[in-house]
């Protein structure tokens, strides 16, 4: 049982890798950015675990800025992905402009909340 499940797991990982390698480079860059943002968030949580959560507003704004940019990058990826039928009439420039606008608002709020 364990052997079959481990071999299943290996087959799974292999197929995931091969399927992911097929995605275009642009999307992979966005995915990399998302991973970077999440890692930064994790580092901040670990730091808070060590040092304590005072001042809480700074901690919140730091975490939420990482999560926020990750979410927005995922939204951009959804809109730019050519395989998505729902967004075929949305030009990538418009998607990127929306992304920039939303990031501006997000970072303005973060700057204000950072204290």
């Amino acid at each position, binding site marked *: 049982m364990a052997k079959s499940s481990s071999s299943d*797991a290996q*087959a799974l990982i292999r197929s995931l890798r091969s399927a*992911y390698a097929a995605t275009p480079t642009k999307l992979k860059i966005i995915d990399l950015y998302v991973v970077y943002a999440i890692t930064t968030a994790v580092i901040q949580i670990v730091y808070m675990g060590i040092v304590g959560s005072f001042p809480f*507003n700074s901690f919140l704004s730091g975490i939420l800025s990482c*999560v*926020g940019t990750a979410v927005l990058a995922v939204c951009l990826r959804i809109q730019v992905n050519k395989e998505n039928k729902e967004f075929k009439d*949305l030009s990538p420039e418009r998607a990127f402009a929306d992304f920039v606008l*939303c990031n501006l608002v*997000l970072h303005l*709020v973060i700057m204000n909340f950072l204290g």
Partner: protein
Amino acid sequence: MLQPLNLNRIHRWGLQSPPASHRLLPCLIQPSMADPSEAKGEGSLRKAFGGVLGVFILLLIGTLAFSIRLFSVIKYESVIHEFDPYFNYRVTQFLTKNGIYDFWNWFDDRTWYPLGRVIGGTVYPGLTLTAGSIWWLLNNLNIPLSVETVCVFTAPIFSANAAWATYLLTKAPPSHQFEVKGTGAGLTAAALLAMVPSYISRSVAGSYDNEAVAIFALIFTFYLYIKTLNTGSLFYATLNALSYFYMVCSWGGYTFIINLIPMHVLLCIVTGRYSSRLYIAYAPLVVLGTLLASLVPVVGFNAVMTSEHFASFLVKCQEVFIILHVVALVYYIKGILSPKMFKVAMTLVVTIGIAVCSAVLAILIALVASSPTKGWSGRSLSLLDPTYASKYIPIIASVSEHQPPTWPSYFMDINVLAFLVPAGIVACFLPLSDASSFVILYIATSVYFSGVMVRLMLVLAPAACIMSGIALSEAFDAFTRSIKFQLPKLFEASPSDAGDTNRGTQDEPTKVDNNTPTEKTETTAKERPSEKHRKKEKKKLEKGKEIKEKGKENTDKVSNKPLNAKKLLVLPLEASAVAILLLLILGAFYVVHCVWAAAEAYSAPSIVLTSHSHDGLHVFDDFREAYAWLKHNTDVDDKVASWWDYGYQTTAMANRTVIVDNNTWNNTHIATVGTAMSSPEKPAWDIFNSLDVKYVLVVFGGLVGYSSDDINKFLWMVRIGGGVFPHIREPDYLRDGQYRIDAHATPTMLNCLMYKLSYYRFVETDGKGFDRVRGTEIGKKHFRLTHFEEVFTTHHWMVRIYKLKSPKNRIRGKSKKKTNPKTTSKINSNKNVKKNPWQ
């Protein structure tokens, strides 16, 4: 053959979705008999005409919403109503005088003496900032309106905005799939919202309260959410977050939004309607919304945490956020893997996931269960368990707005909409889309919450208007379509009766399949008109309901057919005409009721009272008289004690420091005042003296029959005081469980401060001391006050102001009375013991 062409024309008109977002107002204009090549040019002209007509109608709806709220200004004067608006007015005055930085950091020391109140951190700034910026803008344009005028008229302006937002919200639902809803439904919903009494009650001119702008923000936020859901554009998601921020600034009811939207997302996921647009609509809103909500000082970290424990960190919207990400990941992986591999992945993930989730859940439950209220605040708990407040928190239970509503209040507040709503709900199911499911969820939750608290009927009003707008629009659609379809035939053939049109409809080749259902509805339709003609004089409203059910059936049958072979189920001509007439009469009843409610029921400013008697109109302006007396005859730093109802008005109009006010944030302080009012004179004097009080204010309605006076509220004072100070017991004031102030009242009642201050010298008015509100003569008629002196009583004895007597001077040396030597020695020996100056 002309007939199939007709069908095509109507087919294309009624059922296609237009490329532009403007939709021609349905069925108001007859299709011409021209051939298709001219139809395009005519179609665009008609579309333009329809667009202009729509804009004009919207302007009229805005004007209607504004003007129906002006009754109080016309009947009384441009004055701020009630209690809470006076506080908002005072804060706005401060803002306009001192600027935004001072406002943001304001610590108010003229209320809750000696505690003070941090205004910057405990007030929802949206309303004051809105009115302040309108005032600033107008003054910079050299239109010198006073702050009071701006405050009075803010609510009607924003109700016009709310009506336009309702138009947008009702128009937005799936406009690119079916033309079931559209501009017609939007206009109807907007017109209904402009007049609905429930909204009027909280937004008349002069009711300068949070809900005036908050309802507009609520509807606008929902509109932007639906728009994002439909278009999947990140731009609208940003606007949605900003609009949510405005809502958080304005009202505590923002929790409704931040709980409803995750519920809807969950519903979409569970019913298998997950799409990437859902992710774009929800995920940025959570992140941006949480951040923006934390910016508002009143909310602060409550946006993220619901209890003191940091670990129970997840609010509902964040939990759904996580669930949404899991679902998104699952869909993504499903997209890139083959089905077999996907199954393997699922089994692996499920086994690991269940183990992790149960561990996390166990920790969470343990932490939340260890806090006494399980992480909810008192008010929210009372929403879930309506009996909670009456058992544990008497202050929340005593506010009349927090009581559950009665059935008649539904018909008073939303009138006709109450039975149009179910028809609208059914119409939303055909077809069910993301947006329709959202509106259905909105109305379901708001109906539940309005059943718990009367104040929340306000949240029900927009949902009811949207549903009713959809229902009415559908009904009109069905009827006018039948008329439109049959009218040309009527003009071509002989001026005939229903029989001819029956034959005409049955001749249609495309309608052959539906002969039986057609006949059935036609026969039933024919029976109904004759019944109606008989019963017409008796019950018009019920007939309107039958018509609506029939309309509903028809839309059922119409929408069940496939799109390309849509058969028009046509009613006989007279039935449709009669039905339209009855719908219009229904609308007329609604309008009449709304105008009556606005004029008679909801326009009273409650600071000025009027009564009609045989010699004309009496105006009771006692409150303002009392506050003006206080303002002119006392020192600026004198403290005034009264029950908390009048705190805001006293600080705003009399400009004196008060002990407790309507914010009711400190229960012990209120209980102290309540205890003082319930105690005899000496202990009450002690309590008030310890609070540096100089004047005591009571409201008394016994002379004129004003029933919201302090004697009627007295039992609440006893309950709240007794909740903190156990020596005040409610049964002491009741005789056999009954609350009375006549000769059979208990001695505790007859000796308490409230009784004495209310009825002091009352017997001088008519010789017998007959209290018009309680309907009896008072118990103790002739008495003196030892520790208080009366300084002012208003014209109708409605407000009475007393001053605390300063303590007597201590007398050293010989006592005043001349006594014989025997008693003198006794007095001399007593001099060594400290004498209480008050006994």
